[in-house]
């Protein structure tokens, strides 16, 4: 047994070294998922607090108008476009949907009219036909701002008020779903796309055949691949977590060790699919169609690129049993919802069942040449 493990660990050691000497392999297993994460993170990352893109045309030179403009720019809800200063360019941008609306402050805005001692004025919101809904919200926000200012000038009693209470719980943002999905995609890449390319190549070169003349056993070869891919996977996914934490404000709520353990288990299970496909196929041509049949449903239905709750119920039911679905759900439940292994028993159980099935197949269909 000690000798068997020496064999496995030597294979892991040398194959891992080989991996880090291959820049292309590093890029595709570690760099590529990071690029994916940055792209998708930027698409979904900022939608959690919705903001209006607005141009402000300030034609007034009163200090009130200046302060009002500044307070709008500081607002988190309103995103003021700085470079638009004329009404014509604002109209252009609106027709291109680059901004949602334009706020026009006329030249008498905020001036003190004779016979009065308070500044007054009327702001105009200009918008296009397809922005009616968002402008209603925007109008509400600006009206509320005016109310606040009015209240400062004219004291009166407000009999009814709405009190806002924020719950301490964060709801899941689109990014939380996207991130778990991207991790799932990364696991699929490391577990399946790697072996299905490498194994047929090794067979073609006769390397596996040469190994089969030695006492090396299939389980030793599988185990060394498993450990090696798990190491590379953990490095790749850790970097994804680092990027998500620093660039997209991801907060890991759950236990880190449980998360790591769950990810390793996931990589091993999904790798089994790659070992079965790559171990069975005699050449690349044989593996390509079958691997598409196996991986495409997981790629699109397991929640990698779009959350499963968007699917019709019957599709959700079908996709829930795909091997990658409990992986993605489990990672999200631990990471952003802080669940533990007992909470995610259904996911863990499903992964273990798949692991047994997949490896039973992988060992059965493996051929050295």
């Amino acid at each position, binding site marked *: 047994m000690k000798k068997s493990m*020496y*064999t496995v660990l030597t294979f892991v050691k040398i194959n891992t*070294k*080989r991996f880090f000497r291959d820049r292309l392999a590093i890029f595709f297993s570690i760099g590529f998922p990071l690029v994916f994460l940055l792209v998708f993170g930027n698409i979904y990352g900022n939608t959690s607090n919705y903001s209006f893109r607005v141009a402000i045309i300030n034609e007034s030179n009163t200090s009130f108008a200046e302060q009002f403009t500044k307070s709008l720019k500081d607002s988190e809800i309103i995103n003021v476009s700085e470079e638009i200063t004329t009404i014509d360019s604002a109209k252009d941008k609106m027709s291109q949907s680059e901004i949602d609306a334009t706020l026009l402050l006329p030249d008498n805005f905020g001036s003190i009219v004779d016979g009065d001692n308070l500044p007054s004025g009327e702001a105009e919101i200009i918008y296009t036909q397809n922005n009616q809904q968002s402008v209603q919200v925007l109008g509400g926000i600006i009206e509320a701002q005016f109310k606040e200012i009015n209240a400062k000038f004219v004291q009166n009693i407000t009999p009814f008020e709405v009190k806002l209470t924020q719950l301490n719980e964060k709801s899941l943002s689109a990014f939380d779903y996207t991130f778990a999905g991207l991790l799932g995609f990364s696991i699929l890449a490391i577990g399946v796309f790697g072996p299905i390319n490498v194994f047929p190549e090794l067979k073609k*070169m006769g*390397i596996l*055949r040469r190994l*089969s*003349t*030695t006492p090396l056993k299939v389980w030793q070869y599988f185990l060394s691949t498993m450990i090696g891919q798990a190491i590379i996977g953990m490095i790749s996914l850790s970097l994804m977590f680092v990027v998500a934490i620093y660039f997209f404000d991801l907060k890991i709520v759950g236990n880190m060790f449980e998360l790591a353990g769950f990810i390793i288990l996931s990589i091993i299970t999904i790798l089994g699919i790659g070992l079965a496909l790559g171990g069975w196929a005699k050449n690349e041509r044989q593996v390509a169609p079958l691997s598409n049949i196996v991986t495409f449903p997981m790629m699109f239905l397991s929640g990698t690129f779009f959350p499963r709750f968007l699917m019709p119920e019957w599709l959700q039911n079908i996709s829930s049993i795909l091997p990658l679905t409990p992986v993605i759900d489990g990672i999200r439940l631990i990471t952003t919802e802080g669940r533990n292994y007992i909470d995610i028993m259904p996911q863990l159980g499903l992964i273990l069942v798949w692991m047994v099935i997949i490896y039973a197949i992988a060992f059965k269909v493996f051929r050295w040449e």
Partner: protein
Amino acid sequence: MNNVTVEVRNLKKRYDDKQAVDDVSFNVKKGEIFGILGPNGAGKTTTLEMIETLRPIDSGTVRIDGIDVTKNPQKVKYLIGVQPQSPTFQDKTRLTEVIEMFAAAYGEKVDEMSFLREVGLEEKANSYVENISGGQKQRLSIATALVHGPKVFFLDEPTTGLDPQARRNLWDLIEKIRSRGVSVIMTTHYMDEAEVLCDRIAIMDEGKIVAIDTPKNLIKQLLDRGFKKKKLVEQANLDDVFIDLTGRALRES
């Protein structure tokens, strides 16, 4: 019997409609270089593969050092070293690591350098396998087949595609391995190679062994049957001229 390392009895293998190996029997003694010759498709490789445990045997028996190949393939694998026809290695691997990996496949840890030195590759120890020549790959492959001290060493057309210098170098290496008491079984298409190197040869055709003897005896038998070459054989051939003009030193950058 105690001197016989490989014992092949009535070996048969059938592929669909073709009897690839048809009742093949031979013995290989300890420290003997045994050549299997024959045209393509004669069943040489299939015969080798059955002895090497790579292919199931239809009928007949193969014993290596007294151990039955069919009944105990795992044990036999510790006794044999196999040199494939065109050795390939995974790139980005150093020569020392190749040796280390193959030794590990047998659960052993060896001094990689001593094995590389033996095949004249100590200077290339830290190179990657993709940066060595074809002849060097052959020698590296031989080293990998010897890491566990096998009793039988198989070579499948070891010198195909090598230049005359590299061929001669490989012959010396095979002689050296044999001198340590390892039995060598090899196939080749080069008759000069078989004549120089092999103690005995078996000539196969259509799955059968048609002749088995020392090269000298086989030639004598032919002459005894009244065979005459049209032209008198020169005392030297073109190969000798080539080596005389270019020397025996290995050409590898």
